[in-house]
């Protein structure tokens, strides 16, 4: 996919800029949900974990891949769900 490291580096640098721009606009009010939500996004490593176990042969790598799936899914499901729960609590004053 990313045979050329320069392409991967380009994507990395541009993503960092997008990240800084987008995150700077998140108000301090929502910094905890931002942390738990972005944390869930870092569970994207689930993609790597799925690739690691997607082979026919079974070895130590499969065990690592299995554990990685468990860890990453805790991260993904726990992170998005707890963020949703928290955000549901933020209410405006009734007028």
């Amino acid at each position, binding site marked *: 996919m990313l045979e050329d490291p320069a392409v991967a580096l380009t994507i990395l640098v541009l993503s960092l800029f997008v990240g800084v721009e987008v995150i700077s606009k998140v108000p301090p009010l929502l910094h905890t949900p931002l942390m738990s939500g972005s944390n869930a*996004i870092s569970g994207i490593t689930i*993609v790597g974990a799925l690739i690691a176990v997607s082979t026919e042969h079974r070895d130590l790598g499969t065990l690592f891949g299995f554990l990685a799936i468990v860890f990453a899914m805790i991260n993904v499901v726990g992170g998005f769900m707890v963020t949703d729960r928290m955000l549901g609590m933020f209410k405006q004053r009734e007028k």
Partner: protein
Amino acid sequence: MGTPIQLAYLAAAVLFILGLRNLSSAKTAPLGNQLAAAGMAVAIIATLIGQGIVGWGVILAGVVVGSSIGAVLARRIEMTAMPQMVALLNGFGGGASALVASAELLRIEPAMAGEVANSVKSWAIVLSTLIGAVTASGSVIAFAKLQELMRGAPITYPGQQYGNAIIGVGVFVLCAMIALDPTRITAFTILVGIALVLGILLVIPIGGADMPVVISLLNSYSGLAACSTGFVLGNASLVISGSLVGASGLILTKIMCDAMNRSLPNVLFSAFGAQPESAGGGGEDQGVAKAYTPDDAAVIFSNATSCIVVPGYGMAVAQAQHAVRELSDLLESKGVNVQFAIHPVAGRMPGHMNVLLAEADVAYDKLIEMDDINPQFPETDVALILGANDVVNPSARHDESSPIFGMPILDVDYAKNVFVIKRSMNPGFAGVQNPLFFHDNTMMIFGDAKKVVLSLVDAVKNY
């Protein structure tokens, strides 16, 4: 086969960015979180299709186990325990990335080793493993400190920093050895072990009140580990998502450091708050703090038209947020305008106080940031300080000898009356005595924050 999968990854990345963008306001934030979750679903499904779903038994088992644990944690966790929860999630994310990188290293065929040696892939493998393992064990220590399974105070010993520096050099040598020859499995095992130890050593000297910085930093690491794993697998979606999270954690880290007027190296390596006695600004000439009762406070409240509540970690410890909401409602029904002043580092993680007060149904438009609320203190009748200390210490403003000199604070001492609810006269985390407690307009009410606030409610009702 490749292109549609790549486009699905692109869609996932776009959904992540849109999701984060919607976190810019409390109204759109729930949608933002759902967009990000949808992005994750897209990425997972695309991967399963792209891989042709081989080894689905292992996949299914892992997904079911992980999702169940995650769901139970997310439902059961108390809002006061949110810092621990985030620390734990950071750890799982970092651990997953380290495991993926390790699996990739084990899969390198000896015949291919020459080709992989000193490549982007081999360096990315050691980097992912290193960052991921440090994040995992560091997060476990952060969790243990926040959950009070271990002492929150900094743990220090002679030669600590030199020891860590030597380990740092050793880690670099090992990384280079493995990157240059990825068949060195023994060296790799040692690297994993040392990285885990390093994560522990880096977090134990950091005290409880500096946890907002540590959690933000570990958050960033978990993203960078995923990003690096993207280089291992040549997968753009990991690079993009990982760097978004990395950027987010770094921004929060910077905001937290700025809010304490300290540099990141100072937070990480100075073991702040380790020796309370030796820290400057003793309390000898400051006069006597005056202890009052809730009934005295009720008299002041009955004549007040405005009140600013300043919550701190003490409110979280005492689980006082619901009692505070009750007091706030009661005062508002008597015509007092009540607002909440939120210092960026109040509590144990960024935004901690906001979440607790939102849980207690305090409207979020009453939660005011430091820079917006500070000009209002001189016209405010009552500032009510609940388990906050260093963030309201006026010596940060003018006392150059104070360890917290220069830290931006909430200007509560400018209010007409200041109530401080505190368990005892013990100095705060920074080990600095707070001259605020001895001011003429300051009234101390000693006791557990929740009990005191509840008796305040009774006193105001019966006045």
